[in-house]
């Protein structure tokens, strides 16, 4: 896929470009090509630059209050020059009551003070490549994690009483746990025994006793999904995926965002 090309422009005379510069760099970090026009651009200069640079989207920034005049003018001129298909988004110090006016004038979206660069980057990606950032629901429950004092004392219940078969036992040293997997249809029970008192599982048992520790969902595109969740304000324990069992990539969502349940996202190893 070609890189998304973005023109960031400062229309009018306003010289405050901290926001424009920070956004330019953040979008570059998201893999986009960003052209920043510099200060004091007239609407015509901006439109000409957009056409010449063949950009996918224009971002306008204004802190001086001139947005009501200048943003619509950029949209108008784009139409005039036959480039009305280039979407225009805006940001800066924009009073909320002006936002609907700007949207009515053809500005696609307005990001005001305090908006995160993550949310902006995702919005642009979705705008330019629609559908790429909507996600399939989890395909199954990958496993249910249960914290136990001792695997040796627990396994007889699952194996003998319930009759499940033991798939494998392995130690995950990074988490200081020993793990036993038991298959149930297409999902698994994961029994977790702490190997040290500093293990998160040991702390869990100390606080709550033995019991259900987490639920893991099987998903795809874990990295994008984490970025999206983060931008939506979901509290994540791992913002980047980490190595799980069987070459899988995993990350945990904080129970405060999942209503008291520790949720694990799991992408199977390829």
């Amino acid at each position, binding site marked *: 896929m070609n890189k998304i090309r973005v023109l960031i422009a400062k229309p*009018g005379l306003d010289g405050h*470009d901290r926001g424009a510069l920070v956004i330019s760099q*953040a979008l570059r970090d998201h893999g986009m090509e960003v052209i920043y026009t510099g*200060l004091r651009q*007239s609407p015509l200069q901006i439109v000409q630059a957009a056409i010449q640079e063949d950009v996918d989207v224009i971002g306008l920034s204004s802190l*001086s*209050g001139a947005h009501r005049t200048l943003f619509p003018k950029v949209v108008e001129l784009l139409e005039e020059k036959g480039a009305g298909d280039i979407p225009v988004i805006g940001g800066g110090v924009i009073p909320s009551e002006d936002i609907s006016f700007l949207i009515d004038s053809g500005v696609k979206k307005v990001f005001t003070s305090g908006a995160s660069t993550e949310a902006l980057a995702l919005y642009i990606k979705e705008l330019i490549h629609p559908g790429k950032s909507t996600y399939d629901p989890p395909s199954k429950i990958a496993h249910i994690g249960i914290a136990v004092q001792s695997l040796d004392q627990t396994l007889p219940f699952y194996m003998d009483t319930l009759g499940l078969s033991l798939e494998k036992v392995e130690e995950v040293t990074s988490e200081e746990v020993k793990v036993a997997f038991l298959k149930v249809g297409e999902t698994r029970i994961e029994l977790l025994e702490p190997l040290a008192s500093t293990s998160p599982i040991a702390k869990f048992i100390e606080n709550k006793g033995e019991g259900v520790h987490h639920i893991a969902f099987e998903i795809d595109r874990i990295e994008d999904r984490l970025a999206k969740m983060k931008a939506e304000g979901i509290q994540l324990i791992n913002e980047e995926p980490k190595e799980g069992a069987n070459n899988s990539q995993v990350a945990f969502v904080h129970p405060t965002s999942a209503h008291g349940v520790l949720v694990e996202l799991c992408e199977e190893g390829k």
Partner: protein
Amino acid sequence: MKKNKDSEEKLNIYEEILRKNSKRFPERKEHFETSSNIPVKRLYTQDSFKEEKTKEYPGVFPYTRGIQPTMYRSRFWTMRQYAGFGSALETNKRFRYLLEQGQTGLSVAFDLPTQIGYDSDDPMAEGEVGKVGVAIDTLHDMEVLFDKIPLNEVSTSMTINAPAAILLCMYIAVGEKQGVPMEKLTGTIQNDILKEYIARGTYIYPPKPSMRIITDIFAYCQKSLPKFNTISISGYHIREAGSSAVQEAGFTIANGMAYVDAALEKGLDIDSFAPRLAFFFNAHNDFFEEIAKFRASRRIWAQIMKDTYEAKNERSWKMRFHTQTGGSTLTAQQPDNNIVRVTLQALAAVMGGTQSLHTNSRDEALSLPTEESARIALRTQQILAHESGVADTVDPLAGSYFVEELTDQMEEHIYEYLYHIQEMGGAVQAVQEGYMQREIHQEAYETQKKIESNEEIIVGLNAFEVEEEINPNLLKVDPVLEEEQVSMLKSIRKDRQEKDVEHALEQIKHAAQSEEENLIPHILHAVKVYATVGEISNTLRDVFGQYEG
């Protein structure tokens, strides 16, 4: 000796308690640091700072503790709220309101076309007239702006840079009409072009001719306006653009040195202009670091003026500064929280010994302040001055182990930047190479990342949010204003003596072309015959060229 043994014993007890405690109450973070990444220790003790620093006194070189011996016991800082919007008539009303409310100095905000030398009917001015400040095209607007405000009784600060000479001349002309001779006028023009290239963006000409206009102003004022501050060397906007506290102080002092160098090169005597140099800083969130920044900056400036530039007059050594609370720290979310932020920042400025203060209004992340918000902001200062008791002794935090050590550390880090910029060939060179711009931008980006990852908590923004409709009572600038301003300008152009204007502009052109001639008397003449800000600026653009950012 006994005392030492005593304190050693106490230290041992403390460490024992600490050891026991730290298991049950581990610290919130592994590392604590200031916004400039200076590590903050768990505890500061008498071993933290150098003994000789406790022997500093206010009003005595190097002025770490303040530039006056009595500070606010004699007179509070000047409460100076920046205001200006729309037309000169409306702004005049707001000024008179603020003066009635007990404000003690005026501070004029100009709109962007005025700040960049365009008339209100210039195509470049479209949509900007009267938006972020008052629109001034000719002396007529300035007469309306100061109507019924006696210029011999107020001091006026004007946030004007590239066209500072023009607005200063208009101020002189208004004074003359009121019967106030220019040597009685008091106030400040910002006139700091270097930080415009670095952070604020309202430059017109390239650095070299811009520096020449500034030194022309220095030379003119030393003779004719001895009570006027000829420059306000500003870290404020550098900080707003995202710099750290250390960078703010370092870059500002480096710029100050560049102005001194330029004036010396022009042949001015250091003690003839240095006492009229003023500074302008930001008061940000990190309370103790800000106080240390103010104290360290005063100490450094005094040392540089005395030792490097060999100024003899004590007034040349003293760093006088205005402070404004940090606009970029305000949030659009839960705007009333901003009142609390402003209070803490204002307190830091007062503890740091500022000469004047602007407190921001709670709604400034959303738009220009309403009258009610502007009043609360002024009341905040009045409560600090009259109710809190913090102004009753000089430099109350001196001798604090933490504040003294932090002051020393800030001093050290600020000097590192100064040496580095000196090596590059001075601030003008560093600006032209984009050095400061890059440093600031990097810092701004790091800050944004910290906020987005919740490493830095901004209450109401990335923590403790509420569902809210942000729809406060906002000040709106009437869109008809642009038309009215333009038609006023047209009628002034019609009524004036066109020949006089042409002649005056011709004179400015000649003066600009000769390096020796001082521009100011010619500009003064031109404004008196109602030449516009745009006409004078364009005349100079023709000679000097324009700076492309």
